[in-house]
Each structure stands twice: as C-alpha cells, then as structure tokens.
C-alpha cells in the first residue's frame, strides 16, 4: 500500500463524496423551498403534514435515516422495492454509485431539505410585510412580488446560515459509510483496517481543502450581495 495507491483510493472515494454532496445540494435546495412553502401553507392539514416531516427529519439522527431509507422500503414491500443498481457500463460509476448510494442520496436530500426549509422560512419571515405591500400597491401580483421583490432579500439573509449547513454537509457525507457507500472516509477506513493510520489524516486534508474552496466561494456570494442592505 504505497502513497500512490492510497491517493488513488482516496480520490475515488472523494469522487463519490463529491457527487453525493453536489447531488444532495442540487436536490435539497429546491425541495427545501417546497417543504418551506408547505410548512407555511394556509391549508392547515398541509401545514401540519410538512411540519411533522420536518420535525422527524430534524429530530432523528441522519445516520438512522440513512439506514431506514435503505432497508425499510424493501421490508415494507416484501422486497418488491429495491434501490436500483444502474448498469451504465462505466465501471467506476457502477461500482460506487450502486443501490446504496441512491438510498443515501435520498436520505441526505430529504434531511437537508428539512434543514434548508427552516432557513428559508426564517429568511422569508424576516422580510418586512411592508415590502409585500409596496409591491401590491404598485399593481404586482403575489408571484411577481415574491420573485421580483422578496426573493433576493431572502437570499441575502439566508446565505450565511446556508453556508454553515453546506459546510456541515461536506463532512456529513462521511455518514454514508454506515451502509457501505464507498465515499472518502470509507476509503480511508479501509486503509486503517489494513493497519495504516495516516490515510485518515490524508482524507482530512481533502475535506479541509474542499471546505476551504467552498468557504471562499460562499464568501464571494455574500460579498456580491453586500451592495444593498436589508
């Protein structure tokens, strides 16, 4: 097990982590908005339905949710439901993006959507009522007011708390290991099982660099929105 081999294995694991991270983000950002609207709905059953889901997703460990998402649907349907193994023919992809990966992606997506929805809600509720009214008296309808007046003010307010969650997500991807997804910590731990301890620190460096890049990008976004005050 030389340095080059370990590097290749960690890189492969990091690839999986990166795809899990990106996929979770792309799916949970819009899903979170849906959860948010649901939890703010004027229709009481809808509101409580979403509030309940959010409560469960935020109130139980993500690790538990991963296990549940992977096993429970199969158990409930007597094995009729299975997370898919795609056969794309691309060996790396098929080996790493297997059924375990899709279950984990699903679990991460709903879990992070629940957290994001609460951030959205805080952001939306912090925009003063007066901004909506100013739009209405100018003849705008609800949709126009939301997208043209409110949304960017929401974005500005939620970038800092979102950044926090996004950085947490980077490290949370290591939880995928619990059902054997071959992500970065899985790869590092595989090396440890063979008696090598240093690869976990090497893996730590991957996380650090990636979080560093994200911090920079999110900081830029925050700065880009600093031209106005809310």
């Amino acid at each position: 097990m030389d340095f080059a081999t370990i590097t290749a294995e960690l890189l492969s694991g990091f690839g999986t982590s990166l795809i899990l991270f990106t996929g979770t983000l792309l799916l949970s950002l819009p899903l979170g908005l849906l959860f948010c609207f649901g939890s703010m709905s004027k229709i009481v059953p809808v509101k409580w339905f979403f509030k309940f889901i959010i409560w469960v997703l935020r109130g139980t460990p993500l690790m538990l949710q991963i296990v549940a998402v992977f096993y429970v649907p199969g158990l409930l349907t007597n094995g009729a439901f299975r997370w898919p193994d795609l056969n794309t023919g691309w060996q790396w992809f098929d080996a790493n993006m297997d059924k375990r990966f899709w279950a984990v992606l699903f679990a991460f997506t709903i879990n992070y959507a629940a957290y994001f929805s609460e951030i959205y809600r805080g952001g939306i509720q912090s925009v003063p009522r007066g901004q909506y009214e100013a739009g209405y008296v100018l003849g705008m309808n609800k949709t126009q007011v939301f997208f043209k007046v409110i949304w960017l003010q929401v974005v500005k307010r939620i970038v800092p708390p979102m950044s926090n969650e996004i950085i947490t997500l980077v490290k949370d991807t290591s939880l995928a290991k619990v059902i054997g997804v071959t992500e970065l910590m899985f790869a590092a731990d595989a090396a440890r099982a063979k008696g090598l301890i240093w690869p976990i620190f090497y893996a730590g460096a991957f996380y650090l660099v990636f979080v560093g890049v994200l911090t920079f990008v999110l900081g830029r976004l925050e700065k880009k929105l600093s031209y106005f005050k809310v």
Partner: protein
Amino acid sequence: MAYLEIENIVKSFGETEVLKGVGFTMEKGEVVSILGSSGSGKTTFLRCLCGLERADGGSVVADGERVFPLEKGETHSLKIGLVFQDFRLFPQYNVLENVTLAMNLLSKQEIKKSGDKKRKFTEEKDKNEARAKDLLKKVGLIDKIKNYPCELSGGQQQRVAIARALALSPDILCFDEPTSALDPALTNEVLKVISDLRNERMTMIIVTHEMEFAKNVSDKIVFMADGVVEETGTPDEIFNRPKKDKTREFLSSSL
C-alpha cells in the same frame, strides 16, 4: 356627482371597530388632507381605499365606476397609488430600477396579452426608463439614479417612493404621513414635491400632521376622530372657524 365618492366605510379588527363609517367626496385635481389624532383610523382608511385592507362595508365610486365593493371576478380601472410613511423602497434595486420595476412588469404582461409579436419588450423598456428619468428629474433625483436606497437620505428615499408611485400614472395618489419618518430638515424637500404635484393638478389624498402644509396645499380638509369623519371643510373653515369641539381641541393641541 363628484369624481370620488366614498361612503360609510367600516372596518373592524376582531372586536375593535376602527372605522365606523368614513366618507367624503372630492373632485378630480383636488387635494384632500386628512387630519386626526393618533389612532383615529387614518392609516386604516387609506389602506382600505388602496385595497391593502378589505373594508367590512361602505362604498367607493370613482368617476361613476364602482371601485368597492366588487363582485367576485369584477375589476375596476381606478388606479390608486400609495406613498408610505416609511418609504418601503426595494433595497436590492437602484433608484431607477425602483421606479421602472412595476412599469416593466406591466409592459411584459400587456405584450403577452396582446400577443403582438412585433411589440418588443426592449422598446417598452426604453420608454419606461425614459419616463422614470422624467419623474426622477421632477423629484430632483436625476443624479442619483444609479444609487441604492441605502445610500440615500430619508428625504431622498421618500422622493424616489413618490416617483415610483407616479410611474403607473395613478388617478389618485395617497400619502400616509409622508414626512413623519423624516428629520425636520428633510421634510421640506418632500413637501415641495407634493406641492409641485398639486400645481400639476394631481388628485391627492394626504394624511399628515403638518398643519401649515395642509392649510396651504389642500382644497379640503377631512378631520377624523375615533373612526368617523368629525368635520370637513375648506382649510379656512377648519382652521379658522371649526364647528366641532373635537376639531378645536385637536387643533389647539397640535399647534
């Protein structure tokens, strides 16, 4: 029949009856100032008139057309603008964009509705921008069009808000204490803009605590107390020969 006929507007919030039957009439091009002590229902009345709040009863007829109450699905063509006490500019847009936003959205809708492919949004947008610049020139802010609200003084923000309200060519422009949130030194620049509008015969309803201004600018004064119109009259009648005790009390306490 007067241009605007408001009758018997009532509005309650839960148990509290805030408006107990407010009404008055005014002609096109007139300026009506609404005076009254705090809590008398002036803001609530304006909000009902502008549709931000739905009145529980009463009627509004403008130019012979029913404005309130309306049947479901019925619309009216009266355009009422409202300038708020606290400006409420859109912080993420610069001065010019604040003024053009609603115009551009309207242009987009109209183009879509007309289905006329030859009508280009970019042309409409240029027109709207030219109009916005005219309005901003009028309120004395043409050199600030690229600034953001957070870079302006309160008086400047309020003048932008007036230009923004004018952009849609309202038939009636309402003001809710437009200078109350301003340093005394900044009130005059805003009052001057409103006086200029008066000279252009803009129809305006102004809620204000600026007595001198109300006296000078108004054709009619409406004095409200406890959710009703206590007294109406010309500025001369109200300020020099008030008939009601409540009016006298209010005036002596506001001087």
